[in-house]
């Protein structure tokens, strides 16, 4: 490698200076049926600067949801630290932890099952405030109405209904309202649109962007759909089998993916253009190996077209190829010296053109 080797201890992509949330060397393991351990998240570090959206993508089973939940200590990580507001969340217990969770909220994939079916929408949204006894009854009621309006629901129409009377998109709006009412700083969105139709998905993504501005949120946006992630994120981290492969600005990642896995994910996306021919090069076969006994060295090597002996022997460190573009790969698709392979960028069809704003 001609690049100045920014070898490090897996934190090369973390930024200096003020960050809102810093996760370092997080490890989450689960016991598995055969007596082994599921290595769900293995030594992952990420950070979030105030006001940004970090997208986290990967296939199912790569540990992205576990990482999101472990930030809130659900479940507790085996090791590593989660620093928010000068506090290490991994050391907090009981009420202290619950208090922090007011500021770090989460919304889940299935909006219907994450709402209590027997409660009314008004109570679901009001509950966090009641629990912390913030304000009088009237103040709470006013606040609930405000938040419901903010997320695009009519408080008079839905307030007295129960979750089963609402559509999936409306339930997701309720989940967002419930998270927002505590005025969090960080919102972890765990696949918030994967169970929604494409038309409703666009509504919810637009809503998240609006709420981010209105409430001054910082988002960790977890999803498996790269097009969705790109549309909402400032930076994107790609995860594979419990490890980070690549971290970069959203636009740069899509313009010139450096990790063979990122390229494969991009190439696999179905393009709504019949003239677009899927490129065979870089497409991967097979499926995710078992996280109980992950491959040695680079975890992607068993499916990687570029893998050789070094990939099996040594785990690739996270290094910087260009400003803010980090990759953990022994044989990246391009390197920072300029001797890049220009053909590795993902071909996108024309016609994406001038999209006018949604006029809703």
């Amino acid at each position: 490698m001609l690049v100045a080797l920014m070898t490090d201890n897996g934190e090369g992509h973390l930024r200096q200076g003020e960050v809102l949330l810093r996760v370092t060397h997080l490890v989450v393991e689960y016991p598995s049926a055969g007596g082994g351990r599921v290595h769900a998240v293995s030594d992952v570090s990420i950070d979030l600067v105030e006001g940004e959206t970090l997208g986290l993508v990967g296939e199912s089973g790569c540990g992205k949801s576990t990482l999101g939940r472990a930030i809130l200590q659900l479940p507790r990580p085996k090791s590593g630290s989660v620093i928010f507001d000068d506090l290490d969340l991994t050391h907090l217990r009981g009420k202290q932890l619950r208090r922090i969770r007011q500021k770090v909220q989460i919304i889940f994939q299935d909006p219907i099952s994450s709402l209590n079916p027997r409660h009314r929408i008004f109570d679901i949204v009001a509950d966090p405030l009641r629990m912390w006894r913030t304000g009088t009854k009237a103040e709470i009621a006013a606040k609930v109405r405000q938040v419901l309006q903010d997320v695009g629901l009519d408080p008079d129409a839905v307030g007295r209904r129960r979750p089963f009377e609402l559509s999936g998109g409306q339930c997701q709006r309720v989940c967002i309202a419930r998270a927002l009412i505590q005025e969090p700083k960080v919102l972890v969105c765990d696949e918030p649109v994967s169970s929604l139709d494409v038309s409703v998905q666009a509504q919810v993504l637009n809503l998240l962007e609006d709420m981010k501005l209105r409430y001054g949120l910082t988002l960790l946006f977890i999803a498996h759909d790269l097009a969705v992630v790109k549309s909402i994120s400032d930076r994107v981290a790609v995860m594979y089998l419990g490890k980070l492969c690549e971290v970069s600005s959203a636009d740069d990642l899509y313009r010139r993916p450096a990790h063979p896995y990122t390229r494969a994910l991009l190439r696999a996306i179905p393009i709504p253009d019949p003239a677009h021919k899927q490129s065979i090069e870089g497409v991967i076969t097979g499926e995710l190996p078992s996280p109980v006994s992950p491959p040695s060295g680079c975890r992607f090597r068993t499916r990687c077209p570029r893998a050789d002996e070094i990939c099996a022997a040594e785990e690739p460190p996270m290094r910087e190829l260009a400003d803010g573009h980090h990759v953990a790969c022994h044989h990246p698709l391009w390197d920072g010296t300029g001797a890049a392979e220009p053909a590795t960028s993902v071909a996108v069809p024309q016609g994406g053109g001038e999209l006018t704003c949604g006029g809703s």
Partner: protein
Amino acid sequence: MTAPADGERPLLAVEDLRTYFLGTPGPVRSVDGVSFELNSGSTLGIVGESGSGKSVLCRSIMGLLPRQGVERGGRVLFKGADTSNLTEAQRRALWGREMSMVFQDPMTSLNPVMIIGKQITESLRLHLGLSKDESRKAAIDLLSSVGIPEPDRRFSEFPHQLSGGMRQRVTIAIALACQPSLLFADEPTTALDVTVQAQILDLLSAEQQERHMGMILVSHDLGVVAGHTDEVAVMYAGKIVEKAPTARLFSSMRMPYTEALFNSMPRLEDESHRRLAAIKGRPPSLVDLPRGCSFAPRCPYAQARCLEEEPQLRTDEKNPEHSFACWYPVDGPKSARSVPRNAPESVEA
């Protein structure tokens, strides 16, 4: 796309098909007057949001719906013969042998307490009368043709021992076992990861071409149908609202709903934080459809007429293969990105 194999007769002709689920306060009009034809060797894509009637349409054609509580209308001609009044036994002879289906969720469409080999050989022995050994050999060949490594060993494994993608390959092997001439693939990749989705779609296309089957590929994702179909029908509220050869549909869509669906997708080539063109509102209730065009309440181009009169599916004068149901059609994805127009473009008698 491909000429009918025997004479001029299409493989499948659906005429004014209606499926209403009876209930209170009124019937749910899941499929409401759908007509189309499908030839051997070609693939029809059906797209639409959840609840638009895509799956019910497939099940109605196959005859998989319960007899009671369902009101039916219209005809389904399979290889020229009307299948509407078949007995249960006659239908069983068609299922698997002549038409089969790959379902959305490979976790629930396989029998969890039966080894996968047996689930494949079942139909081989029943329909083709193969012996135990013959059917085993055929099943192993099928498993290897759908890309399952070590088919000998996999033959005697249970579904839970396989990953989601492998299970979907098994359901495809089951569907293909008796060489059916018509294959329904109902959201076959929705439950799968994007890298596996690409593999499964390519597999389905390859098998469809090799066996010269007619295939109906149902999806909510325009990207999925774009690369794997010859023709696309867009469904909304139980009706086909636009139908055209795939290339034509994507280059010059006319129905505002198709355009809205297309524009609401986030795209890779767009910069991040670009505002998405969401469709306002949500699909109408199939019990109480709005007057006029069902899409009118959500349509940015709706005029007074759209709220009063229901547009019928009509053929484009210049392109007989292209039909759409709209009073004020749009011109195609590019020009349509301009402001919604207020003047009717072409009003016909």
